[in-house]
């Protein structure tokens, strides 16, 4: 392992898209250092580039310029060292729960008994034992996301990337999975980069919440959340932070809205 304390390092990253003959900066001069075992949330309105940044770290779409390194190695492709959980669950519908979880291990070329053991332990860890033979279509959204998390955990990747993973879930299921995720994070000591547009979710989960701006995507605020866990969403300290972040976010949201109205006027 490299001696540096930073697990993920993003420096001077730009991402430029062409739109209507114009350059649009989805990401502009992003610098972000994430320490090993840190839980970081990227927060911002839609179009702020938070998912673009996550996809760049995942290796799905590389930055136009700048560098992203993990353990000191530059990112060039997606890889199982950076397991990703998607908002749309993205479970393979033709595989049962256990087949989905085992898939990454099969790709790695793990031995059958080792795969079985790992799958069994993950089914236990995520309370999925009774669902092992089910197909995704027969699972609720929350259950599907548990399977998606298990599938990534099976890789034993030190980093978990999560793209609004709980965005489509109802409030209770969401809180439930947030607590599960925190439990797993503490137990397995993962580095987590988590994209969300929910202020409360970011404050409930993260060590650090990074607020991004709407076009060009830059870092507006890098806020350390020092509240002890489990966090009480009703506490004054929590709400003070929430208020602060709301204000920041509202500014960006209004720029986003203006842009949409301008777009509508052009149409």
């Amino acid at each position, binding site marked *: 392992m490299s001696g540096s304390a930073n697990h993920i390092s993003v420096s001077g990253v730009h991402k430029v898209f062409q739109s209507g003959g114009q350059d649009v900066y989805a990401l502009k001069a992003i610098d972000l250092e994430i320490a090993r075992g840190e839980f970081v949330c990227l927060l911002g309105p839609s179009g702020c580039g938070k998912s673009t940044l996550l996809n760049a770290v995942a290796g799905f779409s590389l930055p136009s310029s700048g560098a992203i390194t993990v353990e000191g190695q530059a990112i060039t492709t997606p890889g199982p060292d950076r397991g990703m959980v998607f908002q749309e669950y993205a479970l393979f519908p033709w595989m049962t729960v256990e087949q989905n979880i085992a898939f990454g291990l099969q790709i790695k070329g793990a031995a059958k008994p080792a795969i079985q053991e790992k799958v069994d332990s993950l089914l236990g860890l995520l309370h999925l034992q009774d669902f092992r033979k089910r197909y995704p*279509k027969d699972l609720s959204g929350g259950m599907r996301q548990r399977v998606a998390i298990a599938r990534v955990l099976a890789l034993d990747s030190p980093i978990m990337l999560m793209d609004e993973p709980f965005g489509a879930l109802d409030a209770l299921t969401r809180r439930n999975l947030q607590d599960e995720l925190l439990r797993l994070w503490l137990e397995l000591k993962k580095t987590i980069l988590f994209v969300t547009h929910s202020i409360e979710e970011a404050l409930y989960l993260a060590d650090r919440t990074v607020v991004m701006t709407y076009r060009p995507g830059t870092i507006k605020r890098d806020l350390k959340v020092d509240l002890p866990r489990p966090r009480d969403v009703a506490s004054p300290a929590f709400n003070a932070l929430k208020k602060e972040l709301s204000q920041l976010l509202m500014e960006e949201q209004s720029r986003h809205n203006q842009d949409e109205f301008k777009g509508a006027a052009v149409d």
Partner: protein
Amino acid sequence: MKKYRNAASGILVPLAALAFWQMLSAKGWVNATILPSPMQVLVKWWAYLRPLEAFDPAQGSYLAWCFSGELIHDALGSLYRVLLGFAIGGGLALPLGLAMGYSRLVYGLFNPLIQVLRPIPPIAYIPLSILWFGLGNPPAVFLISIGAFFPVLMNTVAGVQNVDSIYLRVGRNLGASRFTQFTRIILPAATPYIFTGARIAMGTAFIVVIVSEMIAVNNGLGYRILEAREYLWSDKIIAGMFTIGLLGLGIDTVMSRLSTYLLKWHRGLEQG
């Protein structure tokens, strides 16, 4: 209970149609040569089905005798041609479709030719098929292959092209090689389309077999009903038509059961 009610109501209209038909014949409103009574069709159907000669142990086993009837012989002949043509046409279309769906290059190379050939109905190949293959099974199987080829091809291409990119992203994220992505993600994701194509191909093959037997083969259900017309045996024509219908229904039921079983993970399927 509800199941029985549905079954009962499902049989009402066919019964009424049958009664109406029987009434037409009984009252003598239609010429019996043109439209025989249902009873007459049934009698003819039985005669068509049962063995032509009395059982003779010297000729072979009892079972072979049971299946020696003309209808069985015709139905098996038609079925054989359908299955062989389907296997050849589908067997060629599947790998080509997978390649065309997966590779833009292969798609670009083959698609123009496919688009030109596809609208030609298989029936239009009849003259050429007889010229090339003469009479008998070969031209029929050739025509059926063509009929089965295009539905499987088009659906396979669409199936591969429509694989949700999120699955491929997950595959890459998990570190899958291109080969693994193809066999474990693209292929299974495309199977619902491929099965739809196969089912359509089976239907087309069944149409083409009847037509080709009317022209190029001297047995089979299609041949038999055309032959019956020569003798003005309208009862046999209708008996043959019902046999064709039942055989087609049987094939489609098997196909649909098979795909329901193999695609039990698929959300879009009704529970059969």
